[in-house]
């Protein structure tokens, strides 16, 4: 385009901001057209600055691009780094969500079939969040746990985030299944409080035994409790097996109140006791 090239002295002045607007505009127009002068003006930018910026470009290209879930979390006001942590939580992985969806769908379908057993749903739904919590709290399920635990965020905050990450979707899914299984009115009351009570209890117990043991023991207790309660209400175990209405002991107010109280108590115990340093699996929490 041009046989003219900017003098080094002019490029230097331009780089230092010592040219007026019109002259600068001319230099810029010339640079846009002249590869040779673009090459020469490069000397005016410190190599270290160019290097740092290039490293940042490469870092951004290598960095994970946020998935739909992570973007949603950020848009709903969460800090980007917290959203990343949540999204990277193993309990938010698709396989886990798929398996609880399947289990709950199965229970819900069984409950809605004519002559089906709402019992199955009642027994299963409150346990799903317990399993979720157990997974979130079990360090051996995280292959990087040794490295993770030596970081400042490890401990209460990370456990809280992880529990939230696994409780959230499992409660939403159980809620949907609950509507299918028992109708809108009763479904929440039927499983939500027991679910919270059991989750908090398993956390509280985690100070004494590994959380997986606590969760399974509570699971067995809960399931047999539901069966016995139903049997007592209906008079015989045979009647339970043949299915029936959801008017079990659980719907009654006293039972619900009890579950709520247990949930509250266990939550207090869990936060005050089980997460103290050196207690949980003899590790620093």
């Amino acid at each position, binding site marked *: 385009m041009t046989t003219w090239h900017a003098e080094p002295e002019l490029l230097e002045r331009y780089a230092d901001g010592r040219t007026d607007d019109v002259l600068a505009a001319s230099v810029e127009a010339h640079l846009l057209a002249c590869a040779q002068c673009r090459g020469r003006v490069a000397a005016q930018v410190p190599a270290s600055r160019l290097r*740092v910026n290039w*490293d*940042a470009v*490469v*870092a*951004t*290209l*290598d*960095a*994970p691009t946020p998935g739909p879930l992570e973007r949603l979390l950020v848009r709903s006001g969460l*800090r*980007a*780094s917290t959203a*990343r*942590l949540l999204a*990277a939580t*193993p309990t938010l992985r698709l396989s886990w969500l798929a398996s609880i969806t399947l289990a709950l769908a199965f229970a819900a379908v069984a409950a809605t079939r004519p002559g089906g057993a709402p019992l199955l749903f009642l027994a299963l739904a409150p346990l799903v969040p317990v399993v979720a919590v157990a997974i979130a709290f079990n360090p051996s399920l995280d*292959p*990087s*746990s*040794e*490295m*993770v*635990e*030596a*970081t*400042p*965020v*490890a*401990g209460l905050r*990370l456990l809280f985030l992880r529990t939230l990450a696994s409780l959230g979707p499992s409660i939403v899914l159980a809620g949907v299944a609950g509507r299918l299984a028992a109708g809108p009115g009763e479904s929440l009351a039927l499983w939500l409080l027991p679910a919270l009570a059991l989750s908090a209890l398993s956390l509280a117990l985690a100070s004494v035994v590994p959380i997986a043991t606590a969760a399974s023991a509570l699971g067995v207790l809960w399931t047999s409790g539901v069966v016995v309660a139903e049997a007592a209400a209906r008079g015989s175990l045979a009647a339970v097996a043949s299915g029936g209405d959801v008017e079990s002991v659980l719907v009654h107010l006293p039972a619900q109140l009890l579950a709520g109280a247990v949930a509250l108590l266990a939550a207090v115990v869990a936060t005050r006791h089980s997460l103290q*340093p*050196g207690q949980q699996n*003899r*590790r*620093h929490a």
Partner: protein
Amino acid sequence: MTTVRFTDITKRFATTPALSGVTAATGPGITGLLGPNGAGKTTLLRILATVLAPDHGRVEILGLDPGDREERTEIRRRLGYLPQEAGFHPRFTAFEFVDYVAILKELDDRRARHAEVHRVLEVVGLGNVAGKRIKTLSGGMRRRLGLAQALLARPEVLLLDEPTAGLDPEQRLRFRQLVSGEHGRTVVLSTHQTEDVAALCSRVVVMDRGAVRFDGTPAALARVASGRVWIADTEASLGAAVSWRTGDGRVRHVGNAPAGAEIAAPTLEDGYLLLIHQNRTDEEAA
């Protein structure tokens, strides 16, 4: 200046004692924890890394007490730790994993964090595989990936459990350059390779069966075998603690002199082998 101090540490797993009254202190520079498998090196490093609480004893890192929750968090901010069994989510990419740990190390600003992740990956020579999934990386690469996360945010105290395991000689050399490069940092690394200690450490602590058996300079460890190393042509030697045939066909004995042997200059390895052997015979005698 003392940055890491532990006094009379005891730790038991179920019924087996892992550490029985371990005491030492160290400061800036590289300290090697040398010992056979099962000596308690890993348990000690896990305690220093604040991952495990000791049953008894006092630990002090950078003047802070890991038993106190707030002080422990402060320690963790200034600490880098490479565990022996560094596991990874195989679906993470190398970058994603280090980025994840970086968030846990409170590097919240995205741009600065990404730059730091990029830096540590470059330092361990994994810059070109940053975007690859971890399951496609080789064992040596994964080892270096573990090292990369330990280097995040330039920790003042670096605890490395068997950092050179699974590295080829070239990578090992690179690791040595990397660790010895930064001054003023406290590095405690465990190994059962005496060459690592000889090449890197200004200080060596020998552990065996849950106790400290030696604490001093590598030269002093070699001197343990002073006057006890012999070169002979025969293998038969009742008095030798250890003996082995070397590359030139002759036999090196550490311990009492076999007949017709010539004395040789001791190495760090000689001192270490003699120490462990003496420890074993003392225990059996007791």
